[in-house]
Protein backbone atom coordinates (compact mmCIF):
# COMPACT_ATOMS: atom_id res chain seq x y z
CA UNK A 1 0.00 0.00 0.00
CA UNK A 2 2.86 2.34 0.93
CA UNK A 3 4.44 1.65 -2.46
CA UNK A 4 1.22 2.62 -4.28
CA UNK A 5 1.01 5.89 -2.32
CA UNK A 6 4.61 6.63 -3.23
CA UNK A 7 3.96 5.99 -6.93
CA UNK A 8 0.86 8.20 -6.77
CA UNK A 9 2.88 11.06 -5.23
CA UNK A 10 5.63 10.61 -7.81
CA UNK A 11 3.15 10.74 -10.66
CA UNK A 12 1.82 14.06 -9.35
CA UNK A 13 5.29 15.60 -8.97
CA UNK A 14 6.32 14.36 -12.43
CA UNK A 15 3.10 15.75 -13.84
CA UNK A 16 3.90 19.14 -12.25
CA UNK A 17 7.41 19.04 -13.73
CA UNK A 18 5.96 18.29 -17.16
CA UNK A 19 3.54 21.19 -16.63
CA UNK A 20 6.55 23.49 -16.12
CA UNK A 21 8.27 21.96 -19.17
CA UNK A 22 5.21 22.76 -21.28
CA UNK A 23 4.25 26.20 -19.96
CA UNK A 24 7.65 27.67 -19.04
CA UNK A 25 7.04 30.57 -21.44
CA UNK A 26 3.84 31.61 -19.67
CA UNK A 27 3.67 33.57 -16.47
CA UNK A 28 3.24 30.58 -14.17
CA UNK A 29 4.02 30.88 -10.51
CA UNK A 30 4.59 28.45 -7.70
CA UNK A 31 0.91 28.38 -6.70
CA UNK A 32 -0.04 27.34 -10.25
CA UNK A 33 2.49 24.55 -10.09
CA UNK A 34 1.49 23.35 -6.62
CA UNK A 35 -2.18 23.47 -7.69
CA UNK A 36 -1.30 21.35 -10.70
CA UNK A 37 0.06 18.69 -8.37
CA UNK A 38 -2.75 19.03 -5.79
CA UNK A 39 -0.22 19.57 -3.01
CA UNK A 40 0.33 22.00 -0.21
CA UNK A 41 3.04 24.40 -1.35
CA UNK A 42 5.50 23.36 1.36
CA UNK A 43 5.14 19.60 0.81
CA UNK A 44 5.32 20.04 -2.95
CA UNK A 45 8.55 22.09 -2.85
CA UNK A 46 10.20 19.58 -0.52
CA UNK A 47 9.27 16.58 -2.68
CA UNK A 48 10.13 18.33 -5.96
CA UNK A 49 13.56 19.29 -4.65
CA UNK A 50 14.25 15.79 -3.37
CA UNK A 51 13.56 14.40 -6.86
CA UNK A 52 15.05 17.05 -9.17
CA UNK A 53 17.63 18.70 -6.93
CA UNK A 54 16.10 22.16 -7.44
CA UNK A 55 13.04 23.92 -6.08
CA UNK A 56 10.25 24.32 -8.68
CA UNK A 57 11.06 28.04 -8.91
CA UNK A 58 14.75 27.42 -9.57
CA UNK A 59 13.93 24.61 -11.98
CA UNK A 60 11.72 27.01 -13.95
CA UNK A 61 14.50 29.61 -14.05
CA UNK A 62 17.08 27.07 -15.23
CA UNK A 63 14.69 25.69 -17.85
CA UNK A 64 14.01 29.19 -19.21
CA UNK A 65 17.73 29.86 -19.49
CA UNK A 66 18.35 26.51 -21.23
CA UNK A 67 15.56 27.30 -23.72
CA UNK A 68 16.97 30.80 -24.16
CA UNK A 69 20.36 29.30 -25.06
CA UNK A 70 18.70 27.25 -27.82
CA UNK A 71 16.89 30.31 -29.17
CA UNK A 72 20.03 32.46 -29.10
CA UNK A 73 21.91 29.70 -30.96
CA UNK A 74 19.18 29.78 -33.59
CA UNK A 75 19.84 33.50 -34.08
CA UNK A 76 16.83 35.07 -32.31
CA UNK A 77 17.37 38.54 -30.90
CA UNK A 78 17.94 38.95 -27.19
CA UNK A 79 14.69 40.85 -26.78
CA UNK A 80 12.67 38.22 -28.66
CA UNK A 81 14.40 35.39 -26.77
CA UNK A 82 13.49 36.89 -23.40
CA UNK A 83 9.87 37.21 -24.47
CA UNK A 84 9.78 33.67 -25.85
CA UNK A 85 10.93 32.18 -22.54
CA UNK A 86 8.54 34.21 -20.40
CA UNK A 87 10.98 36.88 -19.22
CA UNK A 88 9.50 40.10 -20.50
CA UNK A 89 11.98 42.57 -19.08
CA UNK A 90 15.21 42.54 -21.14
CA UNK A 91 17.17 43.72 -18.09
CA UNK A 92 15.98 40.93 -15.83
CA UNK A 93 16.47 38.37 -18.63
CA UNK A 94 20.06 39.51 -19.24
CA UNK A 95 20.79 39.58 -15.51
CA UNK A 96 19.37 36.12 -14.91
CA UNK A 97 21.17 34.73 -17.95
CA UNK A 98 24.50 36.07 -16.75
CA UNK A 99 23.94 34.88 -13.20
CA UNK A 100 23.33 31.30 -14.36
CA UNK A 101 25.69 30.94 -17.34
CA UNK A 102 28.40 33.44 -16.38
CA UNK A 103 28.03 35.17 -19.76
CA UNK A 104 25.81 37.92 -21.12
CA UNK A 105 23.28 36.76 -23.75
CA UNK A 106 25.09 38.76 -26.44
CA UNK A 107 28.47 37.25 -25.57
CA UNK A 108 26.97 33.77 -25.51
CA UNK A 109 25.29 34.31 -28.88
CA UNK A 110 28.46 35.67 -30.44
CA UNK A 111 30.63 32.75 -29.30
CA UNK A 112 27.98 30.21 -30.40
CA UNK A 113 27.75 31.85 -33.83
CA UNK A 114 31.53 31.66 -34.22
CA UNK A 115 31.48 27.96 -33.26
CA UNK A 116 28.57 27.21 -35.62
CA UNK A 117 30.36 28.91 -38.51
CA UNK A 118 33.53 26.95 -37.77
CA UNK A 119 31.57 23.68 -37.79
CA UNK A 120 30.02 24.52 -41.14
CA UNK A 121 33.28 25.70 -42.71
CA UNK A 122 35.65 23.10 -41.25
CA UNK A 123 33.54 20.18 -39.97
CA UNK A 124 36.50 17.78 -39.92
CA UNK A 125 38.01 19.82 -37.09
CA UNK A 126 35.13 18.60 -34.91
CA UNK A 127 35.27 14.91 -35.86
CA UNK A 128 37.85 12.44 -34.51
CA UNK A 129 40.11 11.44 -37.38
CA UNK A 130 39.40 7.71 -37.04
CA UNK A 131 35.68 8.27 -37.71
CA UNK A 132 36.31 10.66 -40.60
CA UNK A 133 38.67 8.18 -42.26
CA UNK A 134 36.32 5.23 -41.78
CA UNK A 135 33.53 7.21 -43.42
CA UNK A 136 35.73 8.22 -46.31
CA UNK A 137 35.26 11.91 -45.42
CA UNK A 138 39.02 12.62 -45.58
CA UNK A 139 39.23 11.94 -49.32
Amino acid sequence: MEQYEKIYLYKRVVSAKLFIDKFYADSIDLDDIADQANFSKFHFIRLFKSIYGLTPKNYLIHLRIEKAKELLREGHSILATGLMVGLESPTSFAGMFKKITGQTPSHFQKSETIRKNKINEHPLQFIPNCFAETHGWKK
Partner: protein
Amino acid sequence: MITKLTHTCIYVLNQDSAYDFYVNKLGFKVHTDAPMGKDARWLTVTPPEQPELEITLFPIIEGAMFDKETVQTMTSLIRKGTFGAAVFTCKDLLATYEELRSKGVVFKKPPTKEFYGYEALFLDDSGNWFSLAQINS
Protein backbone atom coordinates in the same frame (compact mmCIF):
# COMPACT_ATOMS: atom_id res chain seq x y z
CA MET B 1 47.57 5.63 -18.98
CA ILE B 2 44.02 5.99 -20.29
CA THR B 3 42.28 8.83 -18.50
CA LYS B 4 38.79 9.39 -19.96
CA LEU B 5 36.13 8.23 -22.40
CA THR B 6 35.34 11.18 -24.69
CA HIS B 7 33.39 9.66 -27.60
CA THR B 8 31.23 6.60 -27.94
CA CYS B 9 28.90 5.35 -30.69
CA ILE B 10 25.32 4.27 -30.80
CA TYR B 11 24.24 2.83 -34.14
CA VAL B 12 20.84 4.17 -35.15
CA LEU B 13 18.49 3.44 -38.02
CA ASN B 14 17.48 7.06 -38.67
CA GLN B 15 19.42 10.11 -37.48
CA ASP B 16 16.45 12.53 -37.56
CA SER B 17 14.33 10.20 -35.48
CA ALA B 18 17.28 9.51 -33.15
CA TYR B 19 17.76 13.28 -32.72
CA ASP B 20 14.14 13.61 -31.64
CA PHE B 21 14.41 10.66 -29.26
CA TYR B 22 17.69 11.59 -27.56
CA VAL B 23 17.11 15.35 -27.44
CA ASN B 24 13.37 15.80 -27.02
CA LYS B 25 12.55 12.64 -25.04
CA LEU B 26 15.70 11.83 -23.07
CA GLY B 27 16.67 15.50 -22.68
CA PHE B 28 20.23 15.12 -24.01
CA LYS B 29 22.05 18.16 -25.39
CA VAL B 30 23.29 18.46 -28.95
CA HIS B 31 27.07 18.83 -28.90
CA THR B 32 27.94 18.85 -32.62
CA ASP B 33 25.68 18.68 -35.65
CA ALA B 34 27.89 18.99 -38.71
CA PRO B 35 26.75 18.45 -42.27
CA MET B 36 29.15 16.13 -44.10
CA GLY B 37 28.00 16.40 -47.68
CA LYS B 38 25.04 14.67 -49.26
CA ASP B 39 23.15 12.28 -46.95
CA ALA B 40 25.83 12.47 -44.26
CA ARG B 41 25.90 14.21 -40.92
CA TRP B 42 28.09 14.04 -37.84
CA LEU B 43 25.72 14.21 -34.89
CA THR B 44 26.78 13.93 -31.27
CA VAL B 45 24.77 14.44 -28.08
CA THR B 46 25.73 14.54 -24.42
CA PRO B 47 23.90 13.45 -21.27
CA PRO B 48 22.59 16.60 -19.50
CA GLU B 49 25.12 16.49 -16.67
CA GLN B 50 28.06 15.03 -18.64
CA PRO B 51 28.88 17.60 -21.35
CA GLU B 52 32.35 16.14 -21.95
CA LEU B 53 31.09 12.74 -23.14
CA GLU B 54 29.97 12.85 -26.79
CA ILE B 55 27.62 10.09 -27.87
CA THR B 56 27.75 9.78 -31.63
CA LEU B 57 24.43 8.85 -33.21
CA PHE B 58 25.79 6.83 -36.09
CA PRO B 59 23.45 5.97 -38.96
CA ILE B 60 23.56 2.52 -40.51
CA ILE B 61 23.74 3.53 -44.14
CA GLU B 62 25.48 2.03 -47.12
CA GLY B 63 28.76 3.78 -47.90
CA ALA B 64 32.44 3.71 -47.14
CA MET B 65 31.88 2.21 -43.71
CA PHE B 66 29.11 -0.34 -44.30
CA ASP B 67 28.42 -2.42 -47.39
CA LYS B 68 24.86 -3.40 -48.33
CA GLU B 69 24.98 -6.78 -46.60
CA THR B 70 26.32 -5.26 -43.37
CA VAL B 71 23.57 -2.62 -43.42
CA GLN B 72 20.91 -5.32 -43.74
CA THR B 73 22.43 -7.49 -41.01
CA MET B 74 22.97 -4.64 -38.55
CA THR B 75 19.53 -3.13 -39.21
CA SER B 76 17.91 -6.47 -38.54
CA LEU B 77 19.91 -7.06 -35.34
CA ILE B 78 19.21 -3.57 -33.96
CA ARG B 79 15.49 -3.86 -34.74
CA LYS B 80 15.43 -7.20 -32.91
CA GLY B 81 16.80 -5.49 -29.79
CA THR B 82 20.05 -7.45 -29.84
CA PHE B 83 22.31 -4.68 -28.58
CA GLY B 84 22.51 -3.29 -25.08
CA ALA B 85 24.28 0.01 -25.66
CA ALA B 86 24.98 1.63 -22.29
CA VAL B 87 24.07 2.17 -18.67
CA PHE B 88 22.69 5.60 -17.76
CA THR B 89 22.17 6.77 -14.23
CA CYS B 90 19.67 9.17 -12.71
CA LYS B 91 19.03 10.67 -9.29
CA ASP B 92 15.53 9.25 -8.95
CA LEU B 93 14.55 6.26 -11.06
CA LEU B 94 10.84 6.21 -10.27
CA ALA B 95 10.39 9.85 -11.29
CA THR B 96 12.54 9.45 -14.41
CA TYR B 97 10.63 6.29 -15.36
CA GLU B 98 7.27 8.06 -15.01
CA GLU B 99 8.48 11.06 -17.03
CA LEU B 100 10.00 9.04 -19.87
CA ARG B 101 6.97 6.76 -20.07
CA SER B 102 4.71 9.82 -20.34
CA LYS B 103 6.85 10.93 -23.31
CA GLY B 104 6.32 7.59 -25.04
CA VAL B 105 9.61 5.86 -24.16
CA VAL B 106 9.16 2.08 -24.16
CA PHE B 107 10.46 0.14 -21.17
CA LYS B 108 11.22 -3.57 -21.32
CA LYS B 109 11.76 -3.76 -17.57
CA PRO B 110 10.11 -1.52 -14.96
CA PRO B 111 12.09 -0.16 -11.98
CA THR B 112 13.31 -3.18 -10.07
CA LYS B 113 15.33 -3.45 -6.90
CA GLU B 114 18.85 -4.77 -7.50
CA PHE B 115 21.75 -5.25 -5.09
CA TYR B 116 23.29 -1.91 -6.22
CA GLY B 117 20.10 0.16 -6.21
CA TYR B 118 17.24 0.21 -8.75
CA GLU B 119 17.27 -0.57 -12.44
CA ALA B 120 14.92 -0.30 -15.42
CA LEU B 121 15.54 -1.10 -19.10
CA PHE B 122 14.32 1.05 -21.97
CA LEU B 123 14.56 0.97 -25.76
CA ASP B 124 15.54 3.80 -28.06
CA ASP B 125 13.66 4.52 -31.29
CA SER B 126 15.91 2.13 -33.24
CA GLY B 127 15.74 -0.85 -30.87
CA ASN B 128 18.93 -0.42 -28.84
CA TRP B 129 18.30 -1.08 -25.17
CA PHE B 130 19.75 0.74 -22.19
CA SER B 131 19.90 0.22 -18.48
CA LEU B 132 18.69 3.16 -16.43
CA ALA B 133 19.93 2.91 -12.89
CA GLN B 134 19.68 4.65 -9.58
CA ILE B 135 22.80 3.60 -7.71
CA ASN B 136 22.82 3.35 -3.91
CA SER B 137 24.92 6.14 -2.45
